[in-house]
């Protein structure tokens, strides 16, 4: 009777210890990654290549999602605001929601599932097929040659993707509110401009997306590099990338928001 319970407790303990080990490995890996990033900045063509795979190929999903999120915001916001006769504030509502929260967060979530999982799968497969070890035997450091360019490409593309998401979202909100529902064009923009502050809202949004970019790509490259070199190991690592980075994004977002937007407006 008591045997399964003991096994469970052992299992929990084992998992806790294992996750502490993983955290240690991850920190060491991240430090190595930063130390060895010099090469990818010197050979920027490697980063450009990865920018194509992480940034350009994520554009479609970012554009479409941004447009729809903006349109839904416009519709829902109008429904609520018109009850208070404040439908002219729809522009401000759409822009503030997008620039502060939805732009960075939703773009990062999409980025994690589109580009993050691809990075993990690619690095994991390279490990499984001994490509990383082969590279090491050729006296080329795989962290510098394979991991660092992918990491920096992700870090660079994230703020751009978030900005594109927000801009397209505002356009989507404009489409619904002004073109479809008939809110006044001028008050849409003027309310938006009087409510949105460059430094507090937009710069903070960009800072958020930069931090999310670092977090998502760091998780993705680590999971790939640390994957068990089997087909199952890589698929597990890919899933973990999406789950872990989504949770990290939402957790970080709460922390960052409470730092950035405390006490103002």
């Amino acid at each position, binding site marked *: 009777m008591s045997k399964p319970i003991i096994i469970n407790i052992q299992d929990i303990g084992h998992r806790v210890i294992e996750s502490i080990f993983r955290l240690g490995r991850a920190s060491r890996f991240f430090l190595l990654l930063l130390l060895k990033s010099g090469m990818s900045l010197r050979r920027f063509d490697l980063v450009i290549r990865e920018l194509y795979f992480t*940034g*350009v190929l994520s554009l479609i999903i970012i554009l479409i999602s941004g447009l729809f999120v903006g349109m839904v915001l416009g519709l829902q916001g109008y429904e609520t605001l018109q009850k208070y006769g404040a439908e002219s504030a729809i522009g401000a509502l759409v822009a503030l929601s997008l*620039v502060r929260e939805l732009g960075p967060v939703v773009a990062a979530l999409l980025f994690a599932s589109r580009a993050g999982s691809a990075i993990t799968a690619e690095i994991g497969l390279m490990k499984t097929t001994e490509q990383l070890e082969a590279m090491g035997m050729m006296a080329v450091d795989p962290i510098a040659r394979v991991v660092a360019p992918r990491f920096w490409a992700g870090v660079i*593309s994230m703020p*751009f993707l978030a900005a*594109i998401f927000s801009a397209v979202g505002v356009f989507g909100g404009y489409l619904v509110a002004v073109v479809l529902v008939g809110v006044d064009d001028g008050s849409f923009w003027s309310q938006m401009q009087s409510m949105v502050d460059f430094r507090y809202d937009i710069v903070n949004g*960009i800072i958020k997306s930069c931090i999310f970019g670092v977090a998502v790509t760091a998780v993705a490259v680590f999971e790939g590099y640390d994957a068990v070199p089997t087909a199952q190991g890589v698929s597990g690592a890919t899933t973990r990338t999406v789950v872990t980075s989504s949770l990290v994004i939402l957790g970080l977002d709460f922390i960052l928001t409470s730092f950035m937007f405390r006490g103002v407006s």
Partner: protein
Amino acid sequence: MQRTMMDLWVGLFVMAGIGALLMLALKIGNLGTYSTAQSYTLVGNFENIGGLKIRAPVKSAGVVVGRVLDIQFSVETFDAVVTMQLDNRYKFPKDTFASILTAGLLGEQYVGLAAGGDEAPLKNGDKIMKTNSAIVLEDIIGQFLFNKASENSTSKSGGKE
């Protein structure tokens, strides 16, 4: 061949990203209108600022002319010192009247400037001498109830006599 196509796409991507950032900055964030280079600050002491917050608009005749930069409590005069950042294009006379107003019944509070007739304009760092505090809803309600109560009591007492 494939290489140049990739470079082209990445170039387009970066351009789109920068374009989006510029749009956020200029079209949505309205950057440039209130940058420090083109603005000057004014200070005003208010007995009560109500719910005024940093970054609240400063309006004159309904037009946004600046923003509240800072709010401090003065231990010398025991009132609120509100620092406002105004656009350089808008100059106000020395005897301008500043009051804290509310947009709509429950809307956000802002500083309203009513221009006076003085020839000399307010300069950077000047103090607005004539201010009017925020109307605090509780005070009005309190006053209203107090008036009602005193009315009632006088009418009641009048009835007894």
